[in-house]
C-alpha cells in the first residue's frame, strides 16, 4: 500500500508539472510497470534451467503448465458446433442466464434474497470489471452528494489493484484496515474489529470472500460473525471480492459461507465475482457483479443506473466466456464435471502446501511453518522478508513477490525440493 501511495502521489506531482506544449509533443512520463507482470517478464528472461515462477496468480499443473479445464474444452466444442450461435451484441448488462446462474453460484440456489427477487447482477470483464462497475456506481450514488471523500477500506495488505480501481473511480480516500499480523502470521482480528469500530459511519469495506489475496488467511466463521455484527451496527457497506470460490477449499458452498452469511444477516451489498481462476478462463474476462438490494424496486433502479455506467465504459460485455460458464452451470452433468475439475485444482494446491510444510520441517528450517497449511487458496504469505526474497530471486532464480507472497500453483513435485531447500538457505543465511 505504501508503494501504491507513493506511485499515486508521484503521478499527481508529475501531473501538475505538465506544461503547455504543442500536442505533438506530449509530456507523458514513463509509468512504472505493474510489479507482478514485471516479475513474470524477469522470469521469462532468466536462462537458469531450474528457475521457478512463484509470482503471478494462475493455476499450473504438476508439469508446471497452464490447464484448460476439461469441461471448458468440452463446452467450447459445443459452442463452435452450434450453428444457432452468432456474434451479436449481448445486452448492456450481459447474458441474462449468465448473470442469474453466476449469482446463484455465490448465493446458493435457494437463497432467500433470490427468492425475494432482490438479487440482480451485471456481467463484467473479470473480477476487475465487476469491482470497477461497483466502484463507479458507489461514487455516483452512495452516501449522499460530495461522497468522494467516503473512506474505502481495503485490507492491509490486499490485491494491489484494489486501490487503483477505487481511486480511479474518483474516491479520494482509500485506506487500509488492519488485517495481517506479521508477528503471529495470522489474522489481526482485534485490529480489524478496531478499525470497524472507529471508522467513519458509511465507510465501504472491501472484503475478500475467501482465500485472501495475498495472505491466504481468512477469518473463521465465528470471526466473520463478529465482523458482520460491527458492520451492521455501524452502517458500513460490504463489498465482497470473490475471486476464488471453489478454488480455496474445493467446495463452492464452503467458500461462499461469508457472503451468504452477510446476505442472511440482511446486508445490502455487492459481490464482485471472478471466473478467471475457478473456470481457468483468465483471458476471456468473465466476471459478475452480484447486487443484493433491500427489495425488487431498489434493485431495478440500481441496475438501471449501472447500465448507464457500463454503456460509457465498454457498452456491453464479451460473449465467449459468459457462454462457456452459462452452458456449464446450467447443465447438471457439466456442472458436476466442473466441480470435479475445481476440486482437482484445489487438491493439488493442498498437496503442495502440506508437502512444502513437511519438507521445511524435515530440513529443520528455523521458525514455524504451520501457516503454510493454515492458509488457504492460491497464495501463501511466507513471512520471508524483502532481503530473503531478493536472495531467492537473485541467487536461486525463484521468483516471488517482494511481500513474500508465493503462488502455491508454481510448486510441483519436481521443484518442491529445490524450493524448500532454497527457502531454508534464505532463512538461515539472510536476516
Amino acid at each position, binding site marked *: 500500500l505504501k508503494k501504491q501511495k507513493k506511485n499515486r502521489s508521484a503521478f499527481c506531482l508529475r501531473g501538475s508539472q505538465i506544461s*503547455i506544449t504543442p*500536442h505533438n509533443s506530449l509530456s507523458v512520463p*514513463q509509468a512504472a510497470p505493474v510489479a507482478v507482470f514485471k516479475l513474470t517478464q524477469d522470469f521469462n528472461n532468466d536462462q537458469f534451467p531450474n528457475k521457478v515462477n512463484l509470482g503471478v496468480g494462475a493455476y499450473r499443473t504438476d508439469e508446471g503448465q497452464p490447464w484448460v479445464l476439461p469441461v471448458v474444452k468440452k463446452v467450447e*466444442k459445443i459452442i463452435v458446433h452450434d450453428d444457432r450461435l452468432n456474434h451479436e451484441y449481448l445486452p448492456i448488462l450481459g447474458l441474462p442466464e449468465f448473470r442469474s446462474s453466476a449469482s446463484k453460484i455465490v448465493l446458493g440456489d435457494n437463497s432467500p434474497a433470490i427468492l425475494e427477487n432482490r438479487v440482480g447482477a451485471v456481467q463484467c470483464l473479470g473480477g476487475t470489471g465487476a469491482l470497477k462497475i461497483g466502484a463507479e456506481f458507489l461514487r455516483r450514488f452512495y452516501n449522499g452528494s460530495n461522497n468522494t471523500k467516503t473512506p474505502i477500506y481495503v485490507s492491509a495488505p490486499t490485491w494491489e489493484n484494489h486501490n487503483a480501481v477505487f481511486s480511479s473511480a474518483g474516491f479520494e480516500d482509500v485506506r487500509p484496515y488492519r488485517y495481517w499480523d506479521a508477528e503471529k502470521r495470522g489474522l489481526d482480528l482485534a485490529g480489524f474489529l478496531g478499525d470497524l469500530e472507529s471508522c467513519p459511519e458509511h465507510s465501504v469495506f472491501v472484503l475478500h470472500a475467501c482465500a485472501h489475496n495475498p495472505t491466504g488467511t481468512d477469518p473463521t466463521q465465528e470471526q466473520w460473525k463478529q465482523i458482520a455484527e460491527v458492520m451492521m451496527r455501524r452502517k458500513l457497506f460490504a463489498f465482497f471480492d470473490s475471486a476464488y470460490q471453489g478454488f480455496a477449499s474445493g467446495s463452492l458452498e464452503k467458500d461462499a459461507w461469508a457472503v451468504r452469511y452477510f446476505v442472511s444477516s*440482511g446486508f445490502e451489498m455487492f459481490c464482485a465475482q471472478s471466473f478467471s481462476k475457478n473456470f481457468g478462463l483468465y483471458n476471456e474476462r468473465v466476471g459478475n457483479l452480484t447486487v443484493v438490494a433491500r427489495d425488487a424496486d431498489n434493485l431495478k433502479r440500481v441496475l438501471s443506473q449501472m447500465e448507464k455506467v457500463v454503456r460509457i465504459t465498454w457498452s456491453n460485455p464479451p460473449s465467449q466466456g459468459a457462454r462457456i460458464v452459462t452452458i456449464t452451470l446450467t447443465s447438471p452433468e457439466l456442472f458436476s464435471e466442473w466441480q470435479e475439475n475445481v476440486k482437482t485444482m484445489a487438491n493439488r494446491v493442498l498437496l503442495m502446501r502440506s508437502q512444502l510444510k513437511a519438507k521445511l520441517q524435515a530440513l529443520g528450517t528455523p521458525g514455524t511453518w504451520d501457516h503454510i497449511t493454515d492458509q488457504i487458496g492460491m497464495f501463501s504469505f511466507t513471512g520471508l522478508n524483502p532481503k530473503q526474497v531478493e536472495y531467492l530471486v537473485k541467487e536461486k532464480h525463484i521468483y516471488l513477490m517482494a511481500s513474500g507472497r508465493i503462488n502455491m500453483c508454481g510448486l510441483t513435485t519436481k521443484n518442491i525440493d529445490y524450493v524448500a531447500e532454497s527457502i531454508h538457505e534464505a532463512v538461515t543465511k539472510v536476516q
Partner: protein
Amino acid sequence: HLCLNQTSVFSLSVYYTHLLWCSSWWGGVQMGPPDPILGVTEAFKKDTNPKKMNLGVGAYRDDQGKPFVLSCVRKAEAIIAAKQLDKEYLPIGGLAEFSKACAQLALGPENEVLKSSRSVTVQTISGTGSLRIGANFLARFHPGPHDVYLPKPSWGNHTPIFRDAGMQLKAYRYYEPSTCGFDFKGALDDISKIPEQSIILLHACAHNPTGVDPRPEQWKEIADIVKKRNLLVFFDMAYQGFASGDIDRDAWAVRHFIENGHNIVLSQSFAKNMGLYGERVGGFTVVCKDAEEAKRVESQLKILIRPIYSNPPVNGARIAATILNTPELRSLWLEEVHGMANRIIKMREQLVAGLKKNGSSHNWQHVIDQIGMFCFTGLKPEQVERLTKEFSVYMTKDGRISMAGVTSGNVGYLADAIHAVTK
C-alpha cells in the same frame, strides 16, 4: 446445543439491528432513462404486425434479415480451435499480433509511422472501450484545452463517454438538414474558430448517424485548417471497409491526416466490419513524435486500462488477428466486407427506385449519396411517428434508419410507407 444458541444469538442480533434500520442505501437512486435505441427494439419486439421492420438496429443483417456470421470468421474459429491454446491472461495492452495487424489495417503496412515505431496501439473493448481509454488518456495528459469538438450530430454515446472522463463537449457544424448533406462551409467556418490545441473528433468514414462523409478534396481542406488551428485530431473509425467496400478507400482520411503531419489518436472497431459485435474487438492508437514517446505513452495507457478491466478478452482479438494475418482469410474477409457494403448500397438504390415508382415528388438523392449503415432520411418526428404507428416501421426519432435492416423482401413495403407519410 450451546453452539446452536451462540449462532442464533449472533445472527439474531445482526438481524434485529438490520430490522431497526430497514431503509435501503438506494432510496434516492432514480430510474435511469431508457436507452433511446434499445427502446425502439423493445417496442418492435412487442409489435405483432407481420410486416414490421426494425430499422433502429445498428448491426448488419443479410438479405433474409438475419444476423450474418462471416465465413472468414467461422474459418478463423476452426483454425483457432485446432490450436488448443491456453487461456492465460493477455498482456494489459492485449494480443500483440492483433494490435500490430489492427494498426497496419488502419495506416497501411508501409506507413512510415509503423516503420519508425512511433505509434502505440492497444487492444480495447471494441469502439466504446477504445473511445473511453482515449478520453481517459486525454483527460490525464492532454496539455491543451480539455474541449472535445464533435460534429453536429454525432453518435449518441460520444458525449457521455467524454463527459464522464472529465472533458467538455463542444460542436462544429456538420450536417445540413436542407440538403441532407455535408455542411462543408459551416464546418470549415466553425473549425477555423476552434481555440488552438483543442481536440476535434472526426468520423473517419460512414458518419454515424447521418451517413454523410466529406469528399477527399473536402477532407484536404479540413486537414489544412485543423493544422492551422493546431488541433489534436481524434479519429473514430468504426466502419473501415464497411462504408465503400474498400478498406483503403475508407481509411483514406486517416492516412491523409497522418501524411499531412497530424499526430492523431485513433479508435477502431471490428464490431461491424468483421461482424464481431459481441466479442468486443477494438484498438486505440496514439501516433507520437518518436518511438521513445510511444513507449512512454504505452506505459501510461496500461495504467489507465488496469483499474478498469485488467486486460482484454482474447477470443475476438484472436479471430481478427487470424483473419488479418492469414492471406486466404484476409482475401475472403475483403470479399465479404465488400459484399456487405454492396448489399447496403443496393438497398439504398432500391429504396430510392421504389419511392420514385410510387410517384414521390421529393428528392431522395441523399439516400444514395450517404454511405455506410445509416441513412438520415430527413423525415420529421411526426412522420417517424406515423411510420411506426401506421406501418410498424421502427426507427429513431431523428429520422435515422439502419439500411442493414432493409432487405429485398421489405424494401418495397418501406418505399410505400415512406411515400405514404411524405406525400
